């Protein structure tokens, strides 16, 4: 039990019958899940009114562990499913859990349009720089030179800065945090959950088994310490700058604006139409 969370018992938000979970030892996703559930607890969000929509991959499997209305959808599509759900049921609190492959590769189109539309959703993208579930293939966020099963000579593709992408696409709220700082991550997710429009939260997570091991990044503890020593950001800093990628990986709230929320705009227009205004 974390001493800085005296009133938070994670078991109240987990489906304990689903334990033990299937994440690998040392995987960062458990810390991301803890931060999300802690944030939901502090905001006192009713589990009956909470819908968690996830895609495919390691991150996608997290929804099954949350004691809420949970939807494990198709690869890359959770934002599109969530858009339908949130538009049909504005009374629900809709959270999306996605991974870097799910959200930026196969689901990249849905991400940029969700940012543009600005429907009230909270999207957590758990970025571990790898396709873990399928055995460790290169992803759109894999750092350059890294070894993966499909980049045996080292990754030669530049990677996405997801937060810069989300900001450019118009997301109302964009933030980034590392799994090492669970209380800071919790605060960031809380801010995202409270944002009236689309909130994108990138969580820098670690894949120890099929990424860290392949790249001699040490034990899970050592990988977490790399987050502290900003090892990961420095990897980005050393790489070539591109329009979609910053030279640094800043954390915290990176973008926040009060662009009109899509669902509310839609309902306002419909109310006018029903009155015969046009």
């Amino acid at each position: 039990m974390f001493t800085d969370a005296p009133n938070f018992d994670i078991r109240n938000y987990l489906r304990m019958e689903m334990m033990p979970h299937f994440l690998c030892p040392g995987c960062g996703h458990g810390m991301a899940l803890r931060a999300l559930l802690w944030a939901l607890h502090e905001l006192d969000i009713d589990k009956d009114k909470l819908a968690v929509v996830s895609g495919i991959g390691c991150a996608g499997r997290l929804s099954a562990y949350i004691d809420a209305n949970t939807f494990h959808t198709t690869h890359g599509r959770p934002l599109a499913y969530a858009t339908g759900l949130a538009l049909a049921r504005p009374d629900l609190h809709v959270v999306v859990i996605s991974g870097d492959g799910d959200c930026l590769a196969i689901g990249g189109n849905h991400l940029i349009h969700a940012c543009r539309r600005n429907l009230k959703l909270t999207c957590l993208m758990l970025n571990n720089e790898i396709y873990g579930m399928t055995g460790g293939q290169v992803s759109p966020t894999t750092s350059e030179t890294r070894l993966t099963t499909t980049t045996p000579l080292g990754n030669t593709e530049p990677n996405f800065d997801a937060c810069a992408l989300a900001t450019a696409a118009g997301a109302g709220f964009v933030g980034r945090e590392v799994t090492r700082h669970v209380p800071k991550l919790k605060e960031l997710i809380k801010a995202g959950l409270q944002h009236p429009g689309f909130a994108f939260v990138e969580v820098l997570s670690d894949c120890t088994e099929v990424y860290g091991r392949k790249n001699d990044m040490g034990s899970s503890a050592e990988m977490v310490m790399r987050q502290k020593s900003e090892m990961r950001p420095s990897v980005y800093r050393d790489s070539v700058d591109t329009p979609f990628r910053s030279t640094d990986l800043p954390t915290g709230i990176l973008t926040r604006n009060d662009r009109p929320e899509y669902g509310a705009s839609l309902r306002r227009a419909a109310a006018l139409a029903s009155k015969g205004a046009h």
Partner: protein
Amino acid sequence: MNVVDTRRAKPAAKLLSGNAACAAGAIAAGCKFFAGYPITPSSEIAERLATLLPRNNGVFVQMEDEIAAMAAVIGASMGGVKALTATSGPGFSLKQENIGYAAGAEIPCVIVNVMRGGPSTGMPTRPSQADIMQSRYGSHGDYPIIVLAPASAREIYDETIRAFDLAEICRSPVVLLYDQVIAQSSETVALGAAPAAHAERKRASGPRETYKPFAVGADGIPAMARPGDGYRTHTTGLTHGEDGFPTQNPEAVDRNLSRLFTKLDHHRELIDSWETVRCDDADVVIVAIGISARAAKRAVELCRAEGKRVGLFRPITLWPFPEAALREAVKTARAVLVPELNLGQLRHEVERLLGRDRVEGINLINGEPIGPAQIAARASQLASEA
């Protein structure tokens, strides 16, 4: 099933295209959500509903692509709302992944596919009937699906309503499959009264502790939990057990997947629909859907005027195929003729049921419909030989 009374005043006859009739049918059926993506020749459905839904307490959204539109429709239905999307061949291909999800997770939804010529971009403004097999088998894996094939604007209205009812009752995706001629020709349609009652999905009830999302009674249809009602269930595209959680237990997997098929078997009386025209004494029975069936109906008249005993069997429900009704309709027939705007997709199913000996096709894939004279000429010949 729960029945909601929506009796309304009888609307007057209107000049409507098939696509407009579809939009009107959706509103009459209680559809409250449409997500789509522009594609010829189905876009009029989206355009109509963009106006109609906001005035009827519903939501219209144009999504970023066909895949997202299908996903949003399923998402809305998971929220408890009747939802529709409409597309044409290339878009239908893109939607197949999520149609499979709806079939496996048993999420009610309606998908309109206005067929165009293919493959690929094909002939967007020309009629085709080449998605007969895609509508049944388009997504990966073994799954059942209901496909309705209306042949007139009036019938599109009725079948759109029936599509929503079947989707809700059977917890299944339902495809409305019709061709560009039916979609974009305007016909005088007496819509009649809006349905006195339409179906609603079976809702979860009772205590949460004893509710199992995929446990069923005799009808094979699980009761669906609505988010917010306190059941907090899990829905997944992975194979799942009665509790809704992923499983690879062979018995549990087999039981749940087999049930997807048997649940439709239990509802065949509701699902099956067909029309027969003068099949009782027919030497030749024509089997056709959509615009080809319209031409075939005229061909039957032409042949009968010559004294040739020709009839028509028209599946209105295409999948599951009304096989018992077909066998009954061809009882006296020594030849069966299948005109269609593809290279033999419907004939393939007819041959599967009747054997190949007496079945032949008329096939056209050049973007033109098959005319009555061409069908009548061959049917008449076959009747003479018979």
